[in-house]
């Protein structure tokens, strides 16, 4: 049995290596054609590393109050200064990246996956199922994302999990529409017809034949909504509906004392603001580049 598995793995070895070569070549081509996108990707990678290693890189405990250094200006001891509680702003930004990426990735992944699945299902089944799903999506889409997320958080309450849920739910109909449009054309392809003809079950047709062929729009939407999710997290936290103090979160760092003491300690608002701006910009640029790279209609 074990030798059988080994044999299969050995047989697959060259195929895997070839696959990796293709990926590397694709990445190199992407970097050449879309240098801005590549830079954005590197920035996001860097941010992810910073977030992951925040506990090693942060010079101070992000939660530690130090009343001896309240409102300290940026300097040698505190590069980005300190806030109203004497907490190191740089350390809070590094840890805040965790919150931003956690909420951003989780909300986008959940929203895009649910939206994508529903979109494919709507396209595949068509008829009444499609009609109902589309009308529900129309209703949800009639609310601006921030309003829908606000309403959901108001019902569920604040906190990281609820924040992820609120943002994910507000993404679902938007992603569903895009994926459904792609899935509609896939549904008419001959290989789907063939699968139907040989009596393949619905789930097999959807997940085996249709889902892989709508991966490109799914990935593009996922990347595009990552930036939006981070911005939404920041907005909701700013409004007091996101994560709670003393959790380091960029939006939260911009609210409360940062607004109140903006004249006395502007660094409390400037640095988290810059962190949000650059991160969202990076995700948007990467999303645009990926869309250009993956959408065959945009290829020259």
């Amino acid at each position, binding site marked *: 049995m074990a030798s059988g598995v080994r044999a299969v793995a050995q047989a697959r070895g060259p195929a895997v290596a070839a696959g990796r070569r293709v990926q590397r070549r694709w990445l190199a081509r992407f970097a050449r054609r879309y240098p801005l996108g590549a830079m954005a990707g590197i920035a996001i990678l860097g941010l992810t590393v910073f977030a992951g290693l925040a506990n090693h890189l942060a010079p101070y405990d992000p*939660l*530690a*109050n130090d*009343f001896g250094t*309240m409102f300290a200006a940026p300097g040698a001891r505190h590069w980005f200064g300190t806030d*109203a*509680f*004497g907490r190191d702003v740089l350390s809070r930004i590094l840890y805040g990246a965790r919150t931003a990426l956690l909420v951003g990735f989780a909300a986008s992944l959940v929203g895009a996956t649910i939206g994508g699945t529903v979109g494919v299902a709507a396209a595949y089944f068509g008829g009444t199922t499609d009609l109902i799903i589309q009308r529900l999506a129309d209703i949800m889409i009639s609310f601006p994302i921030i309003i829908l997320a606000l309403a959901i958080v108001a019902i569920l*309450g*604040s*906190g990281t999990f609820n924040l992820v849920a609120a943002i994910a739910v507000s993404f679902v109909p938007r992603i569903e529409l895009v994926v459904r449009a792609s899935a509609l054309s896939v549904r008419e392809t001959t290989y789907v017809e063939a699968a139907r003809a040989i009596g393949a079950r619905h789930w097999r047709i959807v997940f085996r034949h249709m889902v892989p062929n709508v991966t490109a729009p799914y990935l593009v939407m996922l990347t595009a909504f990552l930036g939006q999710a981070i911005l939404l997290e920041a907005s909701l936290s700013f409004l*007091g509906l996101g994560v*709670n*103090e*003393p*959790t380091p979160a960029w939006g939260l760092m911009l*609210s*409360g*004392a940062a*607004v*109140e*003491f903006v004249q*006395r300690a502007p660094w409390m608002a400037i640095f988290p603001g810059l962190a949000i701006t650059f991160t969202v910009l990076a995700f948007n640029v990467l999303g645009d580049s990926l869309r250009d790279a993956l959408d065959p209609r945009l290829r020259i």
Partner: protein
Amino acid sequence: MHGSHAPGRRPELRIVAVLVTGLLFWLLSAPLGAQQPRTGGTLTFIVSAEPPSFDAHREVTFALIHPARPHYNLLVKFDPLNYPKVVPDLAESWTISPDGTTYTFKIRRGVRFHDGSVLTSRDIKASYDKIIFPKGDVISVRQGAYTMVASVEAADPTTVVFRLKWKAPSFLQDVASPWNWIYKADIIEKDPHWYERNIMGTGPFKFVEYVRGSHWVGARNEDYWVRGRPYLDGYRAVFIGNAAAQVNAIKSGQALVEFRGFSPPQRDDVVRTLGSGATVQESGWLCNNTVVFNSRHRPFDDARFRKALSLAIDRWGGSTALSQIAFVGPVGGLLRPEGPFATPQAELEKLAGYGRDIAAARAEAKKLLAEAGVPEGFEFNLLNRNVEMPYRYVAVFLIDQWRQIGLKVNHVVKETGPYLADERAGNFDAAVDFNCDFYDDPDLQLVKFLSVELPNGSVNGLNYGGYIDRTLDRLYDEQSRTEDAARRITVVRQFEKRLLDEKVWQIYVLWWKRIIPHSTKLHGYKVGPSHYLEDLQDVWISE
């Protein structure tokens, strides 16, 4: 003989001299720049949170008092301009029996509710019966403060008699409670919960509308029983939770005042912008933040754990630091630090968590945690309300203090309504709470700490911790009955030691300092140590 008259003896000159003297006296006695009250205008003021219900007998928050108090009258009230003087409101006079156990109030004639019906002593009795002897599922959070009351009687349509079981020195002030709104007897009898969702009183302003999340509007009661009052045509309470937005509203003139309080930096910001257009009034504050522990949850049922939590807090350091950014200030015991029952500092420092050596206190706290079997990194939830000032600041401070003895605290923030509902239902581990009052009196301030089930079988709706401590109940009873002032203070100190040092059912964090920066257009308002007293009857605006 008649050729020359001394001037003072000529009658006409004497009259002129009297008139000139009178004029000079009047001019000198009138404050410089004093203005006559002006009728008209709408006062817009800020309220930081929204009312959980409309029934003051069951609520404990300014979020109800500020927007809704002007719709009601009390039996007697604290004079907002001359605190703590008690003045007539619906009672035009009162007498106290020589033994101090019978209070007889004469009720004004001709006072009408906003629906046109006439107020009688029956309405007073029904309201006080609801407060002191609530029936069924009716919640009255202050019934514990009236344990001395044996009965309330409506002797005739204009007379109400309170018979006490013992002489209570502060009973008149207790009756002047700004929470004791007088409701209509017929409505209470029909549906005792009606006032939780509706407004109908005899006050200077009639209810117009409440739009949740936005505003509350009142309009002048044209049939108000005080001649010439109110001065205002109406008022508009706007609900703004964000502290920076509140300051901006005052600075821009969209609102003239916030009746609760601002922090020193907020005050400075308002004054910087409005300049001579701002007036700042400051006062001590009969208000503080406490932390209530849910003694029904482990390990909060263990006094060692609770004491460790109190020991971990550097109150003196926190007071110095937080007073720069929030409206918290003095370190104090159970009674207001500036008040007549304040704990002397030497005694205060002997209580757990009040010592000056925070390192030693935290070492003792860690020892207690180990004894109680609470592991390093133990995690619990701290419930808080989403009122930024000062709750958010106090919570950040507390979480950091407890982190320093190895505890991990999750901050759970809710709106005022759900927050209070969770406290009442016991859905919390620990909660940032408050003990705010309208008068310095142990009968009032200590009632919150009595057992959840009182010895007489009634429920103490202010005890969210769910504990029963008959020693505290006995000490409360003893101080309430004690006529000797010195003895009373001694018993209060025993109560304080039992609560804050031995059992640590609840703890005090910091007392507050009241700072009200407002527009100079606002008149007839004077800040006092309570933020519950304003009824807008005498308030006016100059343009």
